[in-house]
């Protein structure tokens, strides 16, 4: 990656090349911890944009002025609808322009609500068109199913205003909501009417807020993970070891998927999957629960790993992330744990995203505290 000076009004940062974007897509899918949606369509869009000459600059949060205004982007809706209503940069840009108009000033930079899955690429789609830089940060450090499961919600920052747009000339602004949960309910309703897919621009953040309350350097982290996987594949080395070396993560289990239970309730994909051990885990069994994302893992019936630790299930050979919607019998997988962002380890953080927030009656114990 090279730093290129540019005569625009934005902070320059690092210009990303297409190889970085390819790596980003691999990394966001792994950090999606089974959810967040496959970034395939967003990656295709980025390839098209790069082919026609667009580029995106990545800036460090530390470079932001305290008063800088940062747009927070995400796509909302049912993954199934996304299979027909393909990701589109123009569509992703609409709520950003709406928010800028509503606030009466442009954003200095854009960032992702969640780095995990397709949403991790959302600000890049828009930034390709507008020229604004993307901030190397997000608010989850992974993917989570609900809007209050963010670092800014845990820190009680303001949850409004929010803009939503659909592909027609329908635009919605929610100028105020009482809480993050209310904001989730109201915006979800609007999204359903728009065809269960809407692009959104969440409550804007100041540069100060990004630096103090967001999860920093997660874009670089995703790119580094993707690069490590690509390099390992090219050298016939283990992509899994490469991921662990890059992230300080731990391999918890290696095995074969022998059972998958899936049901859709209250708009979430819930269920569990059972993995029979192979090699060094030959006599063991691993059970993983999920609600969109993997939330709790039990080894031989004993809780071994739980959110907010990141539980990533990857293909044993390719290191490719595996989604909870596509995991199936016979797949050879490795279960990895990556360290959780610190903000989620506080009492308020654990209230929002600890095991109890997902209905498990146990206290959080990190796999990284054992030794």
């Amino acid at each position, binding site marked *: 990656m090279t730093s290129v000076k540019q005569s625009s009004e934005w902070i320059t940062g690092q210009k990303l090349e297409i190889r970085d974007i390819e790596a980003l897509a691999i990394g966001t899918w792994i950090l999606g911890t089974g959810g967040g949606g496959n970034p395939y*369509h967003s990656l*295709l*869009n980025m390839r*098209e944009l790069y082919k026609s000459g667009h580029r995106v600059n990545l800036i460090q949060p530390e470079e932001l002025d305290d008063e800088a205004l940062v747009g927070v982007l995400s796509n909302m809706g*049912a993954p*199934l*609808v996304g*299979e*027909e*209503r*393909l*990701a*589109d*940069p*123009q*569509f992703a840009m609409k709520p950003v322009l709406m928010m800028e108009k509503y606030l009466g000033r442009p954003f200095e930079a854009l960032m992702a609500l969640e780095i995990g899955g397709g949403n991790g690429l959302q600000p890049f789609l828009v930034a390709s068109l507008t020229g604004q830089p993307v901030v190397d940060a997000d608010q989850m450090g992974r993917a989570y199913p609900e809007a209050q499961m963010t670092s800014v919600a845990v820190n009680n920052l303001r949850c409004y205003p929010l803009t939503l747009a659909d*592909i*027609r000339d329908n635009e919605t602004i929610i100028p105020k909501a009482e809480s993050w949960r209310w904001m989730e309910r109201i915006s979800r309703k609007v999204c359903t009417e728009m*065809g*269960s897919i809407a692009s959104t621009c969440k409550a804007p953040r100041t540069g100060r807020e990004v630096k103090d309350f967001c999860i920093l350097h997660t874009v670089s982290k995703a790119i580094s993970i993707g690069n490590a996987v690509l390099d390992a594949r090219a050298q016939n080395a283990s992509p899994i070891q490469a991921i662990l070396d890059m992230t300080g993560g731990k391999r918890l289990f290696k095995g*074969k998927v*022998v*059972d998958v239970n899936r049901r859709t309730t209250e708009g979430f994909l819930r269920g569990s999957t059972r993995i029979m051990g192979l090699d060094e885990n030959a006599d063991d069994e691993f059970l993983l629960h999920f609600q969109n994302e993997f939330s709790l893992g039990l080894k031989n019936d004993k809780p071994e790993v739980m959110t907010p630790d990141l539980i990533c299930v990857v293909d044993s050979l390719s290191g490719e992330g595996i989604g909870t919607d*596509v995991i*199936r*019998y*016979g*797949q*050879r997988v490795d279960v990895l744990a990556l360290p959780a962002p610190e903000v989620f380890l506080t009492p308020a953080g654990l209230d929002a995203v600890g095991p109890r927030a997902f209905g498990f009656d146990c206290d959080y114990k990190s796999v990284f505290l054992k030794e």
Partner: protein
Amino acid sequence: MKRIGIDVGGTNTDLVLLEGNEVVQSFKTITTSDVTSGIRNTLLEIVRSAKSDLGEIDAVMIGTTHFVNAIVQRQNLNRVGALRICLPSCGSLPPFVDWPKDLVEQVAGEVCLVAGGHEYDGRELVPLDEKAIETAALAMRSKGIRSMAISAVFSPLTSEHEERAAKIMRDVHPELQITLSSTLGRIGLLERENAALLNAALVDLADQTFSAFKNALDEFELSAPLFITQNDGTVVSVERAKDYPILCLASGPTNSMRGAASLSGLSDAIVCDIGGTTTDVGSLRGGFPRQANNVVEVGGVRTLFRMPDLLSIGLGGGTTVKENPFTLGPQSVGYKLRQKALVFGGDTLTLTDVAVASGWIKLGKATFVKNLSSRFLDSVKTEIFKRLYETIDSIKIDATPLPLIVVGGGSMLAPETMGGISEVVHVQHNEVANAVGAAIAQVSGEIDRIYRDLSRQDAIALAEKEARAKAVSAGADNESLIIVELEDLPLAYLPGNALRIRMRLVGDIKQNQAEA
């Protein structure tokens, strides 16, 4: 009932004559570049043998891998137009996005995006832009496009916009051959559209190929109806097959699996077809191959339509082996086995040589491979079994042990026991399992449409009546038809209690009238 099943593969053309489910005669010849000489040669053998009377045949079923080979080898493909009904959505990822470059250069013609399509709940996204479709039709005509695909957002739910667009296109450009993505099913716009585009690229080749098949049969005064086998193990008339060649794409592996089922008398099993270059593994349920639920790549293009769930690995009788350093495949000597393999006096160590040296099979000259050490043979055996086991185990959807049926020219490579497998079954006539599978193929009738102002029960009854009529007109015996798929989906936003029903019936081919 007497049926002839023919499998026109890339290397061999196989023919079997069945009486009931018994193999009466079988023949194997080389597939020629004109595809039909193999058919002629095998029919000639029947006549020469003077054992069977071609006049008594009730039906002829042909399965072919010709179309998948055409896509993979980029040969004889049409230049196709694409009309996608989607705007104002999906504009950034146009048709042919993410196709291999060489295939795009050969196949991609005029591309038009117009306003229209539907929501997930059946509402219109926006009204269909008929004016823009007329303009697109004129553009296709002036560019000399003769085959095209039409796709629309959420068309598997309601195909109304695709159908209206097709009518407008035909009014402007009557010679145009049109494939609607909704006829190939499945949610997933890009993958469904890709399947429709590939189909459109094959229609002229299908027309030539099937006409040639028919001519070959006519030369032998074989008047029995000709059917073409499809990916799902059922057959269609030549006329319908000409419109949907893509539905024949995987009929090779499908027929091999169905043939294995019939020859073994098993209906729930794993089938492992070990050929010269590759091993295909699939799963049989109720005698039919399990359908893939995921994206299937065809010639480098991601597709999603009715295809059997298959796993392929580069392992077969012609797979090359190196002693130092130890490597197994993926290279194969393929059809040159009889020139290249050591036991035939060649210079390349193949798995066939390993099989001969290990005493699994008698073939060629065993003295040519007597120098292979038993330690080396053991390590090859361990590697073969490991690869087969991992592939076979991956195709299973749960841990219940199932029988494994082994077919194909490389079947001597399969072990006699395996984890997760209740028994390993070898069958007679396994070398012509494909042709047997073609011969026993059944006829289906499918309905997929929206019913209004009816109770659920009445709507399903009406759908069954319509599907039954379709199956019978396709050649099925009404008595034998059973429902194999039924799915109903209420469309809340459409007026009149709208219900979308998808139903498929399958039954036996009706016997020759004169005989019955």
